[in-house]
């Protein structure tokens, strides 16, 4: 009988994982990561990166994914090319995908202000309940599950669903944030920097900056468009939410079919 082949050696962490302190598996050393992108440079690849890492065989993580921007099939296709089968992970109870593409979770939309406000709050409360049930299912007796990451893709769709009510979105995020201390969860939120026109929405972005432990910013190169470099990434590590900046990492990236390549400026020939 032929012995089973040895498992492949764990790969070295890339620049993003080093910047985030993720190392070779294990839970992140932070609780709330805020990913910010812009129209010209999508930061969705960061979420794919987090998703793959949390579901990898090296780690003991589970994921609750709020899919507001794309259907499950989209993420499944993308992650298959990166070597991760989301359907299998979902069957194994390691991934709970909450499909919110239709934005119907807020129920019937009323025109009257007071009833609409109540409907919106009830809708967000139900969404919070669904997240709690997912965590409950993940931590059932069959799968004690190490650490759980809640990924939201993306926040701007929550604002649309709330008819621009920043207050309801922040209330919902407050409850998600409370899960990081009560249920040992980690929160990753994607939002777009340059799609807001109202001051109220800009204040929400500032509030998210304030409460996050880590800020990951994906933006275009200041020098223009290049074929080999797709953008620049800045990772801001704070010592505590609302605290001082402990470390700042800056590097460039290129998005490929089966992953992302990170490198320092000038290190590619």
């Amino acid at each position, binding site marked *: 009988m032929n012995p089973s082949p040895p498992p492949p050696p764990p790969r070295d962490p890339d620049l993003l994982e080093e910047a985030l302190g993720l190392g070779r598996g294990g839970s992140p050393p932070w609780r709330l990561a805020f990913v910010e992108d812009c129209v010209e440079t999508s930061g969705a690849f960061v979420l794919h990166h987090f998703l793959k890492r949390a579901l990898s065989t090296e780690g003991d993580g589970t994921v609750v994914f709020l899919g507001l921007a794309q259907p499950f099939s989209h993420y499944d296709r993308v992650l298959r090319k990166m070597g991760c089968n989301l359907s299998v992970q979902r069957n194994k109870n390691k991934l709970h995908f909450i499909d919110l593409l239709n934005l119907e979770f807020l129920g019937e939309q009323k025109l009257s202000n007071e009833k609409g406000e109540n409907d919106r*709050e009830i809708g967000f*409360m139900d969404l*919070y*309940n669904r997240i*709690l049930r997912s*965590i*409950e299912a993940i*931590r*059932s*007796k069959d799968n004690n599950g190490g650490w759980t990451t809640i990924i939201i893709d993306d926040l701007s769709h929550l604002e649309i669903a709330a008819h621009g009510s920043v*207050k309801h979105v*922040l*209330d919902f995020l*407050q*409850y998600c944030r*409370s899960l990081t*201390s*009560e*249920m040992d969860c980690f929160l990753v939120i994607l939002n777009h920097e340059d799609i807001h026109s109202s*001051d109220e929405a*800009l*204040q929400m*972005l*500032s*509030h998210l*900056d*304030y409460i996050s432990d880590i800020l990951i910013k994906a933006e275009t190169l200041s020098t223009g468009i290049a074929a080999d470099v797709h953008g620049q990434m*800045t990772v*801001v590590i704070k010592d*505590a*939410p*609302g*605290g*001082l*900046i402990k*470390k*700042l990492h*800056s590097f460039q990236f290129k998005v490929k079919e089966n992953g992302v390549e990170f490198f320092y400026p000038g290190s590619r020939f």
Partner: protein
Amino acid sequence: MAESISRSLRDGCLEGEHAPALTIEDSLASPLGSHVFDHFLANLASQIADGTSQARGLVLVALNRSPSFYIDLLRRKGVDASLVDKWVRILDCYSDPLGWKDRIPPLTNVQKPSTRENVSFFRDVRDINKLLSSVLDLGKGFVGQGKTRFAVAVDLVSNLLRHTSLPSVAGLLNNLRSNVASVQPIMQLTDEHRSRRDFLWLEKNSCKAKFCVRLKRRNGRVKLLAEELHMDQVGVKFAAVTSENSFVNKSLLPKVQFNLQLSDQERVDRAKVVLPYEHQGNGEAIQIYDGRRSLSDDQKDPHLVQPSTLSAMTDAQANSGNGEIHYIRDSDDEQPDSDEDPDDDLDF
């Protein structure tokens, strides 16, 4: 200066007076307000535990961070755990501020975090009157119904403003001041216009800040003071403002982005400036060359200005490096042609 603030909070107020209130404001550019709040909170809790404060207990309204964070904070700052349990009450407005957890089915197989005896849940931050009653009930619960006072700390007022109006929050703080020994709310100012931030500048300046205080005395006088604030591994450290970052202690100056005052060096330089109409020459006779006679020290012209005729003589130093203007006057022998335009040579 930070110590004087701690003393004011410790000493409380006299009979019939409003309690002293400390409001801490910060911004995204200098987000150290939470650390400053932690510093004063730990100081006050320590003084209450030692029995040196007028307040005999502390009620902490936790909206921004979990109660466990504050308990860990006080433990790290050296406040005895048993005294924290005895003299600190935390009103938990962080875990369930809107009462959602009461309206959804509870979790079954997930271990819930243990609750402490000195932590009370508050599930309706939109009702300011109920919040005020809860704070007062908690405070009177451990100091009794007598005239003993307790302190209140609120973290973070900005979260309250999201749920209620500004007048309601102002009314809450005003009512608290009537009933407690000292109030310490913290507010977070978010940038209204979020521009591209300079992360390198933020990294460089994120461990230090200027701590500006507006101190209102009993007699109505308002003092503006400033200190430098540094963050280190232990916590917040306050130091006197250094000379290169001196802050002008005047309460009448408007807040503008340019300097209205002169520094000492600028005053000295201004005194050295030689004004052209006041300080002329270096004591010698001034000669104006008109192009018709050569410059000669022996020749005297009635048009020359003698130093003795100057009406104002000052002590300003002569400027030895003055530039010279040589004016060569046209000769009187040349007669202009009648049909020649003397301005023909001009080229505009």
